[in-house]
C-alpha cells in the first residue's frame, strides 16, 4: 500500500523534497556534504556577510554573539562561551551556519562557503593554522576543546532527593534580612507607555 498508517492521510514524500528540507548533521558527521574551504577564503566571506555583527575577528560587536575567544573561562565568574570555548561538536557549527546564517539571509551559502566560514571561525579561535583546508574528509581532524564538557541532566541525582518532603512551616530561620534590591540596579523598563 502507498500508505503505512491506518488513516491513509498524507502522501509519500519524494526524495527531492526530503533532500531539500533534511539538512541536519549529527556529531558523527552523518549529513556532512562533500566540499571544502580554508580560513583565507572564509575571511573574505566573513568580512562581507558576517563581520557587521560578529566583528572582523569573530569577536562580536555590541550585543551580538562572540564566536571566538573565551578559552578556559567556563569556570570563571563570567564565562565567555563561543564556538571555540564552549561548542562540543563542529558539526553543529556547520549545520547551524548552513541552515540559519547569515542572519536575515539564511540558507544562502554554498557548501564550500560554509566550510570556509567554519574554517575561519576555527582559525579565529586558534584551533587551526591558516593553511588548513577544512573538508568533509578533514572535518574530524579538528579537536573541539570543550567536547567533553557536557553531562546529561543529573537533577534527579543531585537535587530532587534533597528538595523533597515536608518543608519547615514555623520558625524556619532566626533572622531575615534584605541582601539585594532590584531598585539599586534600576534596569527595569519604564512602564509609562507601550513597550
Amino acid at each position, binding site marked *: 500500500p502507498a500508505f503505512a498508517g491506518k488513516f491513509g492521510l498524507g502522501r*509519500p514524500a519524494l526524495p527531492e523534497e526530503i533532500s531539500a528540507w533534511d539538512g*541536519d548533521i549529527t556529531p558523527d558527521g552523518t549529513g556532512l556534504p562533500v566540499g571544502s574551504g580554508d580560513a583565507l577564503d572564509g575571511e573574505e566571506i566573513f568580512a562581507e556577510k558576517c563581520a557587521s555583527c560578529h566583528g572582523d575577528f569573530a569577536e562580536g560587536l555590541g550585543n551580538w554573539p562572540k564566536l571566538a575567544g573565551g578559552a578556559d573561562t567556563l569556570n570563571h565568574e563570567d564565562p565567555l562561551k563561543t564556538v571555540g570555548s564552549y561548542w562540543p561538536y563542529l558539526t553543529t557549527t556547520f549545520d547551524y551556519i548552513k541552515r*540559519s546564517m547569515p542572519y536575515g539571509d539564511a540558507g544562502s551559502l554554498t557548501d564550500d562557503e560554509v566550510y570556509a566560514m567554519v574554517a575561519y571561525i576555527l582559525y579565529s579561535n586558534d584551533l587551526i593554522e591558516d593553511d588548513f583546508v577544512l573538508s568533509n574528509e578533514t572535518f574530524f581532524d579538528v579537536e573541539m576543546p570543550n567536547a567533553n564538557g557536557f553531562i546529561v541532566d543529573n*537533577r534527579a541525582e543531585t537535587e530532587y532527593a534533597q528538595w523533597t518532603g515536608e518543608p519547615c*512551616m514555623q520558625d524556619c530561620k532566626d533572622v*531575615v534580612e534584605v541582601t539585594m534590591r532590584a531598585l539599586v540596579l534600576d534596569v*527595569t523598563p519604564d512602564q509609562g507607555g507601550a513597550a
Partner: protein
Amino acid sequence: MSDKDNNIVSSRRAFLGGAVAAGAGALTANAANAQTPDPLITEIQPWAQEFGDGVDAVRYGLPIEHEGDVIRRNVEWLTADTVSSINFTPIHALDGTITPQGCAFERHHSGAIDLKKEDYRLMINGLVDTPLVFSYADLERFPRENHVYFCECAANTGMEWAGAQLNGAQFTHGMIHNMEYTGVPLRTLLEEAGLDTAGDLAGKWVFVEGADASSNGRSIPMEKALDDVLVAFKANGEALRKEHGYPVRLVVPGWEGNMWVKWIRRIEVMDAPVESREETSKYTDTLEDGTSRKWTWAMDAKSVVTSPSPQAPIKHGTGPLVITGLAWSGRGAITRVDVSKDGGKNWETARLAKPGEKMALTRFYLDTDWDGSEMMLQSRAMDDTGYVQPTKTQLREVRGLNSIYHNNCIQTWLVRSNGEAENVEVS
C-alpha cells in the same frame, strides 16, 4: 527617584484621584466611610443615559482601553535586536490560569513568520516505513485531543541568577503562557508514517524543526514523543496566533519552551540526537566547575506571587488583602502552595483555586488581613512527586551562578507599609 518610582507614585495618585468621592487621603477606599453622597451614584452618568456601541462596531475585539497596561513588554538591553528576542506576559495583572493569547509572551529566533495554511507542509522522514508529507487540511482529519499546558521559556527568571535585577513579576516570571491546546498526538502521526523500520524504539529520537530561518531544531527522545507531545493547531479555542506558530506548533508538556517548535515543518525519526545549536550552544546549563548539563528538558516546580508585586502595589490600605499567584510543575500536578509574609521564617498554606492539573498553571490565593506592616512575601510550590520549590541559595549551592536557564527559585517581594513592592533577595 527613578522613572519606575514615578510611575508607581503617579498611578497611586491617579487611583486616589479617581476615588476622591470616598474622601481625599483615605487609603481605605471604603464606600461606607463616605461623608458626602457619591456623584457617581447620585448623578445620572452618560452610560446610563445614552447608547453604547452597536453589535457591528467591532468584529474581533481588543480589551477595553482602560486595560492598556495589560500588554506584553520588551526589555531592550536583554538582546541584540527584537527578532531574536523575548517579551513578557503581564502576569501581574492576570488572574485565573488561562493566558489571553494576545498578551501571551513571544520568543523568536528569526522573527514571527507569516505562513498560510495553504502553504503549510509537514514532513515526517528518517527511520519510518513511509516518509510522508501532510497538508494542513490532512492534520485536521486525524483524531484530536484537548489539553491545558504551560509553556515556560527555559530562560524565565534567568536574569535573576546573580541577584535581584528586574522589578516586576512580568519581567522576572513572565516568559510563560498557559493555553488550552487542540491538536493531534505526535504518536498518531508517527504511526501513520510507520515505526517498524525504526526497530527497537528505546534509544530512538525525533528531531523537530520549524519553517522559519532559525529552524529551532531540537532532539526529543522517542519515549516523550510517543507519550504526550501534541501537534497543535488551536489554542484557547481559536487558531494559533502568528507569533505562536500559526498554523501548527509542537506542544511538549512540562518541558522547556524552546522545544515547543513553532511553524513546525519537519519531524525526523533518528537513532541519535542531532546535538543542534539549540541543545549545545544554547539550552545547556553551565555549572560552577565549568561543566554543563545538557538535555535539561523538564521545568521543575515553581511559583510566584503575582499580586501584590512591584507592578501591582497595594492601593487600598489595611484590611482584607488577597495575596495571589501562580504555581506550576513540569513533572506533574501542583498539590500545595505555601505563602510566607516574613521572608520564609513562617509559612501558611494557600488555597488552590482548583486542584492542580499536570503540567499546567495553578492559581493560588491567600485571603488575609493586612495590618499595614512591611512584608517579605514568598510562595513555595510542591508537586505530586513530593518536590518542594527550592530557594535561590539552595539552587546556587548545586549550580553556581552561570546556569542561565531553569531558575525556579522562591521569589521575594518586599512590600512596604505604603503598599509599594520591590524585588529583593533575603538572607
